[in-house]
Each structure stands twice: as C-alpha cells, then as structure tokens.
C-alpha cells in the first residue's frame, strides 16, 4: 500500500504506468479539499449537537422548523445533484446541448434552494429568533448558513463556468473545472443529508 502512496509523487514507478493526467491530479487535489471541507462541517455539526438544548428559555426546533420546507429544499438539492451528474455524462460524450441544459437546471434548482433558505432565515429573524437569541440558534445559523454560503459560491462558480463553456466549448481546462464543480456540488448534497436529518428531523421532532 505504501508503494502506491509514494508512487503518487513518482508516477513513473512500477508497471510502466504513464504520467497521471492533469485532470487526475487536479481532481485528487480538489478531492482532498472536499474532505477538509467535510471536517469543517463535522465541527459545526458537533457544535450544533452540543448546543441543541441550550435554548435559554427561547423556542427550540419543535417550534421553529418546518419539515415541509426542509423536504422541498432536499428535493431541490437532490435533483440538482442528479442533473449535475447527467450534465457530466453529457460532457463525456461532448454533447454540448444536454450539458448546457443539465447545468442550467442545476443552477435553477440551486437558486430555488437558496431562495427557500433565505426566506426561512428572514422569517426567523423577523420573529426575533435570529442568531443572537440563544446558543442553539447561533449554532443553527452557523451550520446552515455555512452550507448556504457554499451553495452561493457554487452557483457563482457555475455561472462563470457556463460563460466560459459557451465561449470556448469543451476544452481540457473547462472539462477539468466541470469535474471539480460536480464533485463540489455532490459533496454539498452529502452535507445537506446531514443537515436535514440531524437539524430538521431530529431537531424538529425529537
């Protein structure tokens, strides 16, 4: 096993393997970033789990969270992850039209998700249950809005990428960026599974 790890640095090692392509190296580096992002979210999840009962006499999850809203958000994000995958398949086949439609649907569903989340936050803050109300709400806002911030960055990234894609088509650089974006987007969906389960369902019902 250790020889494999070493051979990442010295790719011309055994079995006469060719040099790993730029796409593989970039993909691997981005994958390591995503794992570290996962650790960031794990820390925020731990903070939320610890502070879940620290409501300071204020409202808790049973009162505040709407499972219906969380379900629509989940459906949006899951479907956008799926269409992102379909668009990547279209990139493999160099099908410009399907790739464009796939990424556009991904972007639209991401915007719908973000709109719902901003609406929910605005509602909470308008009712006086903003992040300053209790430690529970601070940890809730930190966790969920960090995820929302990632989605926002992903949408900006996708917008820039789509402009580049329309101007230049399937160049190796753009394919590489699409690969990184799709990894990023799928990981955001994985994080959201944790959010809707442990924040909205466990926090809202149990």
């Amino acid at each position: 096993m250790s020889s494999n790890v070493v051979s990442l640095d010295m790719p011309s090692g055994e079995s006469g393997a060719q040099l790993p392509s730029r796409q593989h190296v970039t993909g691997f580096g981005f994958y390591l970033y995503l794992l570290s992002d996962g650790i960031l979210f794990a820390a925020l999840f731990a903070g939320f789990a610890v502070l879940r009962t620290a409501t300071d006499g204020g409202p808790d999850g049973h009162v505040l969270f709407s499972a219906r809203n969380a379900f629509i958000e989940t459906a949006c994000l899951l479907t956008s992850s799926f269409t992102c995958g379909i668009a990547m398949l279209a990139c493999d086949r160099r099908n410009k039209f399907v790739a464009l439609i796939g990424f556009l649907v991904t972007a639209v569903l991401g915007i719908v998700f973000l709109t719902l989340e901003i609406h929910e936050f605005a509602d909470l803050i308008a009712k006086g249950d903003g992040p300053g109300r209790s430690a529970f709400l601070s940890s809730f806002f930190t966790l969920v809005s960090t995820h929302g911030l990632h989605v926002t960055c992903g949408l900006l990234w996708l917008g820039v990428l789509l402009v580049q894609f329309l101007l230049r088509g399937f160049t190796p650089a753009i394919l590489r960026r699409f690969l990184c974006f799709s990894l990023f987007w799928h990981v955001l969906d994985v994080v959201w599974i944790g959010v809707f389960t442990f924040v909205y369902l466990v926090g809202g019902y149990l």
Partner: protein
Amino acid sequence: MTAQQRHDPRRGESSTPGLESREAHGSFRGYIIGYVSAIALTIAAFAIAPSTSMAPFSVAAALAVLAIAQMLIHLIFFLHINTAPMQKTNILAFAAAMLIIAIVVIGSIWIMGHLNRNMLPMDHLMQMQR
C-alpha cells in the same frame, strides 16, 4: 472484457457498483439507481420522523442509519471516487478524514455530555459565587 482492460489501474475495480461503465463519470444507469434510492431513503426519513409509535431513541437511530445509507449512496453513485491516479490513495485519504470526523463529532458529544451531567446546576454555581 479483456484481461488487459480489467487491470487498467485508471478504471478502478470492475466490481465497484456505480463504476460499471468505461466512462470517467459513471453511467446513466448508475445515476438513475443512485437518484431513485436517494429519493426512497429521503422519503423514508421524512415519513419515520413524525412517528409517535416508536421510542424517540429508536426514531433517532433509524434516522441516523437512513442518513448514513444515503451518504454512502451518494459517495458510490454520484461521487464515484476514482478521479485519482491510485484508488488506494483515495480510500486512504477518505479513511483519514472519516477518522478525524468521528473523533470531532463523537468526542465533542461525549465530553460535553459528561461535563453537562457532572457540573453543578447553574443556580447553585451562582449562589456559591455570592
């Protein structure tokens, strides 16, 4: 499939689910399977959560199991981890991240739970300070 193809290190394990196609980003079938099972697990989670016939602890345990199952579905079918030159390096990095995540989450909940249980109630502490 020839033996030469099967041992191509860039293709990953041929038995890995979600990687049955030759393409770099999985197959259409893999995405459909992943999407449908993710939908099923999501609906199951939302259906189980309001249940009052089960003990709260068993509902929480069921939700945790469903969430982990869905995360695995995503990792296998959407995030097929074969972009690195060596699959083993990928798995190793993933395992290291999972270890850190487990230490952070389980350790925090464990330690803070103990502190919470062993600390004097807040009003007692306030009285002692007077």
